[in-house]
């Protein structure tokens, strides 16, 4: 075995161990643990979708809660009101979120930075009102319960929740691989070039408009997948689950994990789910939880500006003595302010 192969195996080892542990989790964890991990997968895909747009392409969005909500509501309505299966609702969820994302991306051709963030925020503010307006159809503020659950194939002989877990894990893994491959492709290089040097990217022949709208649509479509996963996990949707606070939380998750990195969204999702879960168990008064959460975020911003993934990367480099950068390494602007 040559050195390159050895190094490749060493690099793949943590991923492999992680995957084995995650695939095997239903054999070890109880229902609460499994359902918690399912929420993490939903958050991970949601943060990944935002990271694709904001982290890699420099287009800030505070409207991702709306795209997730579109996917979630499309799934819930298709399954509950029209008797579709979850699987047939998936492409619809992706399509609707993607199309709305493409339309929402058009203003991005003219405006950038904080102004674009404000435009997308309008989307996040308006979205929760839509189900309320269509109460007869959506259940309004009381929400819509989906009676049917994603069922495991009878031949497998496993519980539905374990099957749902593996499906969500598989989709999260696919989303990760998709984004990884896109980022490593010529499209990915174009995205990063636009983020870092907008004018220069245009000068060297990148079709900035096409890339921006495509990324917006793709990011929204992946957020739609997160919405589908949300409905599979919760069998319930309500306007309160898709408020602008959700978008802000996703931005926090991205910043904490490390924007413009591939691993960052996974860490951000773990942070977003487990920190509020763990704090009350450590005896922190629930009323103080948001304050502790805020202090942790400030500390992270001060001491780990590259996010958790940046910190981890530095640690690994220090431990292994490797100084050369490998793979996709980028600066970490969270908002395009150019």
């Amino acid at each position, binding site marked *: 075995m*040559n050195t*390159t*192969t050895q190094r*490749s*195996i060493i*690099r*793949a*080892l943590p*991923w*492999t161990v992680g*995957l*084995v542990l995650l*695939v*095997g989790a*239903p*054999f*070890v*964890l*109880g*229902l*609460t*643990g*499994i*359902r*918690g991990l399912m*929420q993490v997968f939903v958050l991970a895909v949601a943060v990944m979708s935002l990271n694709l747009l904001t982290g890699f392409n420099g287009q800030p969005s505070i409207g991702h809660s709306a795209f997730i909500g579109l996917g979630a509501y499309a799934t819930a309505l298709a399954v509950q009101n029209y008797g579709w299966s979850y699987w047939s609702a998936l492409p619809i969820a992706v399509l609707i979120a993607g199309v709305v994302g493409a339309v929402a991306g058009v203003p991005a051709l003219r405006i950038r930075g904080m102004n674009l963030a404000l435009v997308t925020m309008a989307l996040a503010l308006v979205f929760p*009102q839509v189900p*309320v*307006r269509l*109460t*007869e159809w959506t*259940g*309004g*503020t*009381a*929400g819509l*319960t*989906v*009676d049917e*659950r994603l069922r495991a194939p009878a031949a497998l002989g*496993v*519980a*539905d*929740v*374990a099957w749902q*877990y593996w499906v969500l894990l598989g989709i999260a893994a696919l989303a990760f691989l998709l984004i990884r491959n896109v980022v490593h492709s010529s499209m990915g290089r174009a995205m990063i070039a636009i983020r870092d040097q907008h004018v220069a990217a245009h000068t060297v022949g990148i079709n900035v408009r096409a890339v921006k709208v495509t990324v917006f649509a793709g990011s929204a479509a992946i957020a739609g997948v997160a919405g589908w996963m*949300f409905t599979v996990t*919760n*069998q*319930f949707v*309500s306007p*309160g*689950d898709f408020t602008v606070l959700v978008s802000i939380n996703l931005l926090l998750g991205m910043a904490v994990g490390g924007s413009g990195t591939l691993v960052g969204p996974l860490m951000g999702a773990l942070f977003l789910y487990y920190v509020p879960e763990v704090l*009350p168990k450590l005896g922190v008064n*629930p*009323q103080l*939880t*948001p304050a502790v959460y805020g202090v942790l975020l400030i500390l992270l911003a001060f001491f780990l500006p590259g996010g958790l993934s940046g910190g981890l990367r530095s640690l690994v480099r220090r431990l292994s003595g490797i100084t050369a950068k490998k793979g996709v390494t980028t600066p970490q602007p969270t908002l395009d302010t150019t």
Partner: protein
Amino acid sequence: MTSISRMRLFAAAALLSLGVTACGGSAALTGASGAQSSGSGDPALAECPDNGTVGLTDTTIKLGVSQPLSGPLVAVGGGFVVGMNAYFNYVNGNGGVKGPDGKQRKIELVAKDDQYVATKTKANVSALINEDKVFALLGLFGTSGNLAARPLLAQECVPSLFATSGAPELGNPDYPWGGPAGSISYLLEARASGEYLKSVNPNAKVAILYQDDDLGRAYLQGFKKGIEGSNISIVKTESFESTDPDVGNQITSLAATGADTFYDIAIGLQALQALNHVHASGWKPQIIQAAQVGLSLLKKLEPGAGDGLIMAGTSYDADDPDNADLPGIKLFLDWLKKTPGGEKILPSTATAGWTAAMFMTWAIENAETMDRAGVMRAAHNMDFTGPNFYLPGIKLVTGPDDHYLIEGVVQQKLDRKAGKLIPLGEVQDFNGANPYEKITG
């Protein structure tokens, strides 16, 4: 080469995982199987797992609650849990609750924070059932949270009783594990207001302001039902969103109709805002207020605003010193003082928690069998007569086909000068005449 090696490693991992799949099993993997051996033939128990006595020991019974303990509604959720703790302290101080098996058990309460987010409520319910292993849930907060948790409760066959919501949907007999609610249904309260108006002004012309959501629509449907068969006409309705900063335009539009009656279907501060606008506009209709504002809040109206408004009431005001010696309230105030956090809050914020705990204790004491199904059935066959806050004449009764506990109101008039709500007559009793009705508006 490198990518092939990596692929081999992943393939090996996948095969290893599949191998494990073939061998083992856990709660998450096998899920709920095996029917609960109730022997009752009750369809609600047909697909229940065999978990009817989880959360019970010979000396303790564990109960769970999910309320907003942080976020904007922390005052509501915090007061609720304090009230609940106060009642359970009282029960435990007297040795505990005695179930049908003759054993006396101390009550342990596990409270979780949902920040008034429905999916968090559902996650809390899942954790309370599977991790904390509670016997039953009580007082779950909010309509959406209760509806989100309902399929889970049905699947796990865990009773969730006396919810903090007036949504008529919580009386849906198709979901016996999630009910009855601990509040009067919005639809019934509005129906009672409509019937009252019919009796005092059968030719009224009514202008209505309503919150455009499930709560507002339930009120609207109930009111229309109440005025059926009369000459009362609804001359105009205006809606608003709960997020609207002001309802002044809607009031201007309603005032222009010159209607002799105004029905304010609004909650909390928005209700106050509407009442202040009505007063400022010079319009002087008879106001009917949806019972979504407490007396303590009504006292904050601008001088003269809201005076003489009519509002349906179900219980005594626990903040009023004149009521402090009533048996139910005296007991409550005594134990509230002894409970951590009880001295810092307005007593009225803790009454709902106290009553939910009181009803739950009754259901345990009156169950035919000491298991989840037994307590659920007891909650659907209630006839509570112990000391309580409810106004005299209001029956606290449920039945197998009547999943609403509180089905009576007394219309009350606000006297701003006295700072009191004055009863206008006898109880309007709808017990047994209030079937489940879907909100269609």
